[in-house]
């Protein structure tokens, strides 16, 4: 006998089940409204160019003294950290007594083409960090950098150590040349100068295409076959739609910043080597002396675990911790496990290090 034990009856049953789900989906989709994002009220406390710094509002006074500033990646929209009420890193941190701020980079257009990493890191992040610190009468704040925002946060902290009390990085690449880093592999032979000189800003649609082609069969076929399984559940379909909208809601990338990021980080792998220069100053992670918590996802296909874990080898801090999350690059925000583990993990780590 061969490996397949599918009987015609089973095939029929599966076809019927699938069709019934589709039929139920008809009704579900009729009842669906447009999905919305954001579970937590927020107020803009500072803006500059297209950037807005938000403070998330809370019903009660924060019990933790030092606020957390979240620095998200440029390549996706930051509302992923507060996607919906039961999938919100922000809300979970708030529930544990933290005051939370978030930098929203906005959508760069061609007038932003010449924004450099220096502008982003020594300019925007620094000014936001000062705003947050001043609002709380503090000199230092806690910084939570996510993905590319984590890389930026590392650079920022190395250049402005006086501003950061504790640094938390989530799914953050540090070693860009791990053998399983497909994105990095693809960029290696790209002529980035020609690319940016020609395109100006890098179109979001092109970036999305790259991400989808990291796992083309799962992300473009299997995901939609699986969608039918939840079509009879309005809430699940709304969750799916919310994620789908987030995935494709991407900003274009400011050309100059993209040029340097690809050249120095993806191609040159200079961060781990301490050779990146931002605004004429060298970024040496070995100089970091503050407490660092590095959270990575064990099944991350965008930022492989080894790419994140490399931080432990180069950071100068004697207080370096890692938190391994059992999930992927997206699951670390939205999965049930993430709600149970990520914010509590951050809080527990901070409690022993910050007032």
């Amino acid at each position, binding site marked *: 006998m061969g490996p397949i034990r*599918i009987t015609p009856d089973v095939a029929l049953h599966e076809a019927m089940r699938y069709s019934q789900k589709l039929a139920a989906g008809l009704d579900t989709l009729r009842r669906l409204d447009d999905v919305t994002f954001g579970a937590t009220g927020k107020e803009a406390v500072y803006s500059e160019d297209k950037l807005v710094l938000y403070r998330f509002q809370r019903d009660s006074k924060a019990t933790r003294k030092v606020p957390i500033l979240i620095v998200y990646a440029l390549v996706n929209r930051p509302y992923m950290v507060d996607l919906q009420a039961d999938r919100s890193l922000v809300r979970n941190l708030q529930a544990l007594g933290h005051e939370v701020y978030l930098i929203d980079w906005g959508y760069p257009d061609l007038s932003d083409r010449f924004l450099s990493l220096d502008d982003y890191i020594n300019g925007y992040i620094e000014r936001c960090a000062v705003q947050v610190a001043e609002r709380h009468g503090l000199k230092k704040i806690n910084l939570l950098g996510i993905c590319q925002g984590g890389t930026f946060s590392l650079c920022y902290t190395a250049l402005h150590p006086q501003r950061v009390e504790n640094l938390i990085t989530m799914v953050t690449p540090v070693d860009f040349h791990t053998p399983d880093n497909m994105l990095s592999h693809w960029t290696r032979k790209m002529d980035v100068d*020609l690319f940016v000189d020609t395109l100006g800003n890098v179109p979001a649609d092109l970036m*999305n295409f790259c991400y989808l082609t990291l796992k083309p069969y799962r992300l473009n*076929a299997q995901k939609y076959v699986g969608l039918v399984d939840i079509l009879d559940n309005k809430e699940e379909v709304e969750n799916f739609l919310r994620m789908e909208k987030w995935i494709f809601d991407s900003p274009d990338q400011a050309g100059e910043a993209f040029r*340097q990021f690809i050249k120095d980080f993806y191609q040159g792998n200079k961060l781990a080597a301490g050779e990146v220069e931002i605004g004429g100053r060298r970024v040496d992670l070995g100089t970091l002396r503050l407490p660092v918590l590095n959270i990575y996802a064990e099944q991350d296909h965008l930022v492989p675990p080894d790419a994140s874990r490399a931080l432990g080898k180069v950071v100068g801090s004697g207080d370096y911790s890692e938190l391994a999350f059992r999930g992927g690059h997206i699951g670390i925000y939205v999965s049930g496990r993430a709600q149970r583990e990520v914010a509590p993990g951050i809080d527990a780590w901070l409690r022993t290090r910050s007032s």
Partner: protein
Amino acid sequence: MAEKKTGADWLGDWQALQQRYWTSMGEMARKAADQAGKLRPADMPKWHEGLEIWSRAFQGGRNGHGELVERALAHGKAYLDMIQRVGSLAAQPPGQVGTQDWAATFTEMMKGALPGVGASGFEALRSANIHGARGVEQMMADIEPVLSAFLGEARALLGVQPFGMAREHQERQQALASAVLDYQQASARYQALLTRSLERGIENFEGKLADRSEPGRHIESPKALYDLWIDAAEEGYAEVALSEDFQDAYGALVNTQMRVRQLLQDQVERLTAALGMPTRSEVNSVHRKLAALKRGNVDADALAELQAEVARLRAQLDDGKEPDKTTAKSSKPRTSRKSTVAAGKPSAGKKTATKAKAARPAARSTASNRKPGPSRASAKGAAAARKRKLSR
């Protein structure tokens, strides 16, 4: 003892099951029609058309989620086709269908049927109606009309020695034609590797099927078979996508297209300049100057803050006081033309709000009411005020 079935019996059983399926589908469709008021008797199901019925029925209930519905239906149709074929194979008399038959049949079916799993693996992504994702190849298709217009007969001139008054124009045309050929070669190489990745996926699938021959590891549902195929295809793809060949091919694909775009932009610029219209280079130049201007302002602000700080410290020294050490330790960022939004006002992007804090100290040459809080420059602030240059 059960009577042994003939091949015809198996086929008859399968046909009966299919009939049951469509009878049930028809019943569901009738119910849906009653609810939606969309279906007529003429819409009753025919072979392979079940999903078309749902598609028509869904038209009344998309609520702006049309793309999702389209995708769900496209993949649902392919998936049901797969199940039907799997059922058909399963209906063969025992022993007549081997592992390789399953692998070959299934893969052939997947190649042709499943969106996103076409011969090159990217059919769904390549389709123009995918919102929010466009690859390098679609970008080339986008410029094809303009490219054709500019290329003209240039391909025919390749290799011909340029001469005469139009020599430079001819050279540019030849360069563009040559770049297009380079792109086409790069694209063909990239396609070949995608095809190779699918072949590797098939080989993986056969291997995975063989692994499932052990008792307790058999595949017992169409969904499990489908998922196994996806696993195998992804592994085959990853293997090729992480190869040196793919790295070279991907780089060449991107670089050659950028070269085509660059040459095309040059041609368009010449044309628009001749017509007295603004060019991309001019717009870039303006944006570059704006960026430099902003940085200059930021540096000027930082310098002003530094001067204020020095003046304040000097005054303290003149008064015989100890300099304020707390202030001296802190550093101030390069300030910016920014706005601090008054607390409690959710006003994203507003530029007119004023800072709800005390007025700034004096000695700010470029101070405005949109500047940040109290000035506390330091040695690091001075460093921040250094002359900066554009990264490019």
